[in-house]
């Protein structure tokens, strides 16, 4: 069977914020580069669209790069690489202004300057925003801007199933064209992975259905290490049941968290005093990891409400008034009206912590480069790392801009200096991949395992073992469960034998990827015998800088759980100290 083979200079897998930013950066870096932008969904469906609060950057005279860096490093519980953070804070303002030049409708001050708002864990107002649809506006501005570059060629609704490697370097990708069900080969001199995180490994998450960790698994299978995977951020204010995100900006604008006794409980956990107006890094503006833990402790004390979807607390915006809510938080009002049937102007919003973000990801340097020659990564799927053990809200949108652009430029530079890839054995590879997809993921009526059932078991195991609080016993159990799910996965049942837009097949392929990611999370967590940032162990409640001021790196080991290695954190100017707010 003949397979289509395409050739470009650069392939970008994933067309969300990071992918689009990388594509534009590559297109601007050098003329005549051909850039393939491959995504399993249309670009404007990417999950960047759901980000609400804003993007951090030093925009005002009362702020400084050092303060932004310090806040970020402090928030990361000193696990962030400080050279990467310095690059982030230095390049952030330029990127935010660049996006403004590309039409992003940032909210404005009366004098016409870009507005800034307070955000959790930050000492100064430095979060740039577009009402509370920041991600939506950023994604659409990036996508629409990308349309003007002829060099950017799109493969919409194509599912990348594997990286093609040869001779220690990446050669391209295999692509499942959803419209035909056929495998295509796309070859390039460099590949950038920008596929986002994998929150769908967990049952309650703000993440969209598409966030199944595909890109992380692609790199992992190609032998690249996944860094700091044990650090999974819970966002303290998701809607119970659906997990829909209620932005941190609602607290930045002055919202209160209250328990069932009407008490602003955060003051009981050293985050006080409880002032009426928001104070930086205090109370509701504490970092996400700490706020999520406070919620769980309130639950243990019996201070939470009980609902059909478990315990919840109240986020109270009523005192902010209708006018402020409509101008600064219109999406919060829209979401709560539609999905909970309450109006935040008159009712408190029920919230609980839900999985939101993966600090870990594909191990890259500050240019987005991985250990595999020609392979780059940026955005949530990558780990530079600027987030360390806990990400500060509004740093991720900035990260995807800064490091998306850097990865785009360095992948372009790399591609310029490479000869055209050889394609002789490639058609054979395509045949092999088609056979694998058809044999394992098409019409498997002999199989007995339901994909949805396995997925649910995985999600429950993850919540049980590597949730907000962790301990050795539960984590071991989760690791074992994941191992057995991996075995059972070989026996999945797929009824659909058609090739056009067969989503039963893609759903199974996604779970295949997510299982890999889940395994790295659980196994990385198991080996880190300390508590740091979002990784909180009941059996090791203290931070252990002596042994664990280190990144973990998970490598694939055939037939068994991942192999975990460690290497030191880069420290430039900020010596670790106790993290207290």
């Amino acid at each position, binding site marked *: 069977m003949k397979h289509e083979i*395409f050739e470009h200079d650069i392939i970008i897998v994933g067309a969300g914020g990071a992918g689009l930013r990388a594509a534009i950066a590559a297109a601007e870096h050098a003329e005549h580069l051909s850039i393939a932008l491959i995504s399993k969904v249309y670009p404007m469906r990417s999950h960047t669209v759901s980000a609400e609060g804003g993007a951090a950057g030093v925009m005002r005279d009362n702020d400084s790069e050092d303060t932004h860096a310090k806040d970020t490093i402090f928030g990361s519980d000193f696990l962030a690489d400080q050279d990467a953070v310095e690059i982030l804070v230095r390049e952030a303002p330029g990127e935010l202004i660049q996006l403004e030049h590309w039409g992003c409708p940032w909210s404005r001050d009366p004098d016409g300057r870009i507005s800034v708002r307070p955000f959790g864990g930050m000492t100064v107002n430095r979060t740039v925003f577009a009402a509370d649809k920041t991600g939506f506006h950023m994604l659409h501005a990036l996508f629409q801007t990308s*349309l003007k570059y*002829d060099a950017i*060629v*799109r493969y*919409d609704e194509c599912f990348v199933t594997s990286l093609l490697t040869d001779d220690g370097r990446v050669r391209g990708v295999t692509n499942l064209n959803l*419209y035909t069900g056929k495998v295509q080969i796309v070859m390039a001199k460099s590949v950038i992975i920008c596929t986002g995180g994998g929150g769908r490994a967990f049952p309650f998450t703000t993440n969209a259905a598409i966030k199944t960790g595909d890109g992380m698994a692609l790199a992992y299978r190609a032998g690249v290490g996944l860094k700091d995977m044990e650090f999974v951020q819970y966002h303290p204010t998701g809607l119970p049941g659906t997990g829909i995100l209620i932005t941190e900006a609602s607290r930045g604008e002055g919202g209160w968290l209250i328990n069932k006794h009407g008490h602003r409980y955060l003051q009981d956990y050293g985050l006080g005093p409880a002032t009426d107006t928001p104070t930086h890094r205090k109370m509701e503006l504490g970092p996400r990891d700490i706020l999520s833990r406070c919620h769980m402790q309130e639950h243990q004390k019996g201070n939470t409400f009980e609902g059909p979807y478990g315990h919840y607390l109240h986020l109270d915006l009523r005192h902010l008034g209708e006018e402020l809510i409509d101008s600064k938080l219109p999406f919060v009002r829209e979401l709560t009206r539609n999905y909970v049937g309450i109006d935040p102007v008159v009712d408190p919003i029920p919230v609980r912590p839900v999985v939101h973000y993966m600090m870990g990801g594909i191990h890259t340097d500050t240019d987005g480069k991985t250990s595999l020659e020609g392979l780059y990564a940026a955005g949530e799927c990558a780990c530079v790392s600027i987030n360390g053990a806990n990400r500060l809200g509004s740093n991720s949108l900035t990260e995807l801009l800064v490091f998306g652009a850097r990865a785009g430029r360095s992948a372009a530079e790399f591609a310029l200096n490479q000869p055209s890839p050889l394609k002789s054995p490639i058609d054979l590879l395509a045949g092999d991949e088609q056979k694998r997809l058809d044999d394992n993921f098409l019409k498997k009526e002999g199989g007995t395992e339901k994909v949805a059932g396995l997925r649910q078991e995985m999600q429950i195991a993850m919540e049980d073992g590597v949730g907000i609080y962790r301990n050795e016993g539960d984590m071991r159990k989760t690791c074992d469960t994941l191992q057995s799910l991996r075995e059972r996965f070989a026996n999945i049942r797929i009824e659909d034998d058609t090739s*056009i837009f067969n989503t039963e097949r893609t759903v199974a392929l996604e779970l295949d990827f997510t299982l890999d990611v889940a395994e790295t999370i659980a196994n990385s967590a198991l080996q880190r015998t300390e508590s740091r940032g979002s990784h909180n162990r009941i059996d090791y409640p203290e931070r252990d800088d002596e042994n664990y001021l280190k990144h973990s790196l998970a490598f694939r080991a055939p037939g068994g759980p991942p192999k975990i290695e460690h290497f030191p954190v880069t420290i430039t100017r900020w010596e670790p100290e106790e993290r207290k707010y």
Partner: protein
Amino acid sequence: MEKEMIVNRPDNSKMYHPHMPTAWWFRKWSYFLFMLRELTSVFIAVFLVVYLFQIYHITQGADAYWEIAGQFRSGGWIAFHGVALIFAIYHSLSWFKTAAVILTPRVGGWMVPPWMVVALHIAAWLAASAAVLMLYVLI
């Protein structure tokens, strides 16, 4: 020639291509109202041609007018004008509603709400109609 920016497209021959059903404007009340709105123009056009015919005779002199005036007293013409009037009023109301979509005046920083734009149009309409009526009644 512009470069193709999308590589993969679904195959036209492998898709199902639906057709608008003949009676699509019966499928939704809003579509039906739309078709009624467009139909008003037929009645208005016929009236205008008839009126022009009458005016032609009036300008030929009163005798010429009286010669043709009688036939408009027939039941058929009365019925037509009755229906035409209903359609014309529907045209006016729907037109003012659409005008409120296009005309969004601002007074200072305040946007005049659409219902007020419609109300102003209706007021103007009544005034204009009254003025024409005056010509018939008073003069």
